[in-house]
């Protein structure tokens, strides 16, 4: 479709009222309890921005601790009088930081920005709809997410502090209450309630996305003419609908095990902290099935919208249409569908029939096919193009690089025999941070620099942006590639220190390097933060279509 057609598909058909309604009067209706998709998109974005910096701070504390576990940090004791008595971080505090880092990043950053943030803002603009199909439901979805975030953060300040169970919250220890450690009492309950609320919010959001996309497209805009961003949001919404609906009952049952004396996930014969427990007949592995049936599709919830952004951004800056549009759509749908069939690969060491493991392994590696198609087509889009190097295009290129680097180790981990060795080592940490964490974050950065002119009417500073890209790109590789090496050596994950392991003594240099890389990468994010807020008020005023893009949002006259 030519640029002009897309620009014209939207409004002013029929005899509707003028489409750009005046914003509702009053600060509260306009900015807080707004039903405008653009305001809601920004609300999600800024909530997630706060969450991202909080999550990053937690990871820095962990990295700092790892290079010198006996270091005394006076202010740490002020923040956590019990967790860091004498200024030395206890293993329990380390685990609670890890749990909160993972939970905050996965749910409130990776799930929130690409889909709910950018999706809410740009989906209606790109398809020529006035707003999402159900604006009030949209508002309810954001505020439920917000409450869910508050409930999670509350876990930091309640007696016992934040839970220790990791973002996967495996029973039995997550199901037995405070005897499993500090934070496993009220903190763990808050964690589950927070996740349950998040499930409900995500379901509301997903219903809105699907209904909007299916029914509110401009008349001449067929499904196969949608920008790939829309396909990313669409497939993600479908995954959310089906995956969060499985995590929700899982959470409810875990809460029942904790508070009502049931035994869904708790087996007989449990002895925790020298106390014999009265549970019987439950299966901790059952939780793993429920969790990962959600958890693996969740990985694609994080990455699919980013794939959409990158497709659009690369084609915009290569000054070419996307290479193999149909194949890109089918690949996205295939990734989304296959994502529901591979959860078992997280459980190879949990005790699994080898035949099941083979099935899960084969399907897992099949995901490599649509992923390779996408990568091939991104390269094909760039091939022969006239690449315009800007911050968004750099971050999009960075995404492709990280997606390949992070994805290739997925092929290793997807084989049961290899996974037996790699499981619970830093190899896994390096793998999922590259592909799920950093790649998705690069897509968010690309999206931020790309759409900032539309969202705020000004340009972000390109020099600061390119510096941000360069340091972040080198930084994340310097953090996560050494993690793979540590994992190959056999370095276990989730351990607060490695003093007891002689064979890991030689890795001290690697860990120091990772920590320094993490510090540098974090520091440059402050430059991003400065650039973001400075440009909002002082950036040069943006033209209507600064990147000469062909998608519809740039010809829309809607701003917020």
């Amino acid at each position, binding site marked *: 479709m030519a640029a*002009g057609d897309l620009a*014209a598909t939207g409004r002013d058909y*029929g005899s509707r009222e003028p489409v750009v309604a005046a914003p509702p009067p009053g600060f509260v209706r306009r900015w807080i309890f707004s039903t405008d998709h653009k305001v809601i998109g920004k609300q999600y974005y800024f909530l997630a921005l706060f969450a991202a910096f909080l999550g990053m701070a937690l990871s820095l504390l962990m990295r700092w601790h790892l290079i010198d576990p006996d270091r005394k940090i006076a202010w740490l004791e002020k923040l956590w009088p019990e967790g860091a008595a004498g200024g030395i971080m206890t293993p329990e505090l380390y685990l609670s930081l890890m749990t909160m880092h993972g939970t905050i990043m996965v749910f409130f950053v990776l799930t929130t920005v690409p889909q709910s943030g950018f999706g809410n803002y740009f989906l209606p603009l790109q398809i020529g709809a006035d707003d999402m*199909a*159900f604006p009030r439901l949209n508002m309810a979805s954001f505020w439920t997410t917000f409450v869910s975030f508050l409930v999670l953060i509350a876990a930091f300040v309640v007696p016992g502090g934040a839970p220790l169970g990791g973002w996967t919250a495996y029973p039995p220890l997550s199901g037995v209450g405070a005897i499993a450690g500090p934070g496993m009492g009220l903190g763990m309950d808050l964690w589950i309630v927070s996740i349950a609320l998040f499930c409900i919010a995500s379901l509301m959001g997903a219903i809105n996305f699907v*209904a909007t996309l*299916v*029914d509110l497209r401009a008349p001449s805009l067929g499904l196969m003419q949608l920008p790939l961003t829309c396909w990313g949001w669409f497939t993600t919404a479908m995954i959310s609908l089906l995956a969060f609906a*499985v995590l929700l009952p899982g959470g409810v049952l875990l809460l029942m095990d904790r508070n009502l004396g049931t035994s869904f996930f708790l087996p007989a014969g449990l002895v925790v902290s020298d106390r014999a427990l009265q549970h019987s007949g439950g299966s901790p592995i*059952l939780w793993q099935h429920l969790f990962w049936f959600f958890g693996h599709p969740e990985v694609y919830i994080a990455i699919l919208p980013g794939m959409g952004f990158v497709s659009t951004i690369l084609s915009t800056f290569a000054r070419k249409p996307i290479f193999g549009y149909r194949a890109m759509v089918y690949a996205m749908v295939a990734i989304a569908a296959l994502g529901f069939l591979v959860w078992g690969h997280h459980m190879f060491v949990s005790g699994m029939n080898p035949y099941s493991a083979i099935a899960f392994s084969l399907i897992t590696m099949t995901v490599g096919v649509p992923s390779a198609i996408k990568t091939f087509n991104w390269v094909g889009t760039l091939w022969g193009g006239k690449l315009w190097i800007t911050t968004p295009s750099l971050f999009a290129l960075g995404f492709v690089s990280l997606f390949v680097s992070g994805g290739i180790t997925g092929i290793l981990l997807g084989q049961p025999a290899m996974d037996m060795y790699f499981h619970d080592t830093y190899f896994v940490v390096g793998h999922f941070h590259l592909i799920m964490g950093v790649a998705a974050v690069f897509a968010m950065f690309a999206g931020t620099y790309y759409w900032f002119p539309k969202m705020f009417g000004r340009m972000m500073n390109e020099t600061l942006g390119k510096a941000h890209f360069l340091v972040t790109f080198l930084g994340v590789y310097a953090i996560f590639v050494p993690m793979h090496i540590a994992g190959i050596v056999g370095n276990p994950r989730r351990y607060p220190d490695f003093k007891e392991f002689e064979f890991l003594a030689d890795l001290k240099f690697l860990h120091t390097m990772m920590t320094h890389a993490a510090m540098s990468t974090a520091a440059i994010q402050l430059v991003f933060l400065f650039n973001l807020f400075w440009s909002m008020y002082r950036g040069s005023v943006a033209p209507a279509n600064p990147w000469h893009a062909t998608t519809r949002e740039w010809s829309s006259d809607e701003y917020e």
Partner: protein
Amino acid sequence: MSTSEFQPVELKSDVRVDWEAKQKEASRTGLYVLLASILMFFGALTSVLIIRAGSADDFHGVPIPRVLWFSTAAILASSYFLVRNDKRTGVVFGLVFLAGQAVAWVQFVNIKGPGSWFFWTFSVSHAFHVLGGFVAFRFARFELARVYWHFVTGLWLYVVLMFLIWRS
């Protein structure tokens, strides 16, 4: 490249779009995807039931309170009246259904064991969806609320089937 290349093309004046109809269609789509996710919710509960019942020998089925047949009849009656466009009677029978459930819960308080946990999770989860039905009748279009209600009725028959399979 100048931005002038991106001017919108001329619109065809004979295109007329009924946006209200589109919005109605969106509500219908929204309802169906909601139903899909509710199916996933109960599907997950069912898989927990199957695994829990089959993997440990402490599992005992529970007796089905007789009042459940009464509430089953009530919810079927409510769907019947809704088919006949009698919203008021339908909703009244919906309330009768919930009253029946309440009686069943009172009778069930003292029954223990894994089977009873499933009785509670299934019936209470279902009751929440019935409450959602009342909200739908208040705020959503009747024909959509009715589809949702029939779904909840069907869901209840499914829940009863689960109880029948795993009864003592």
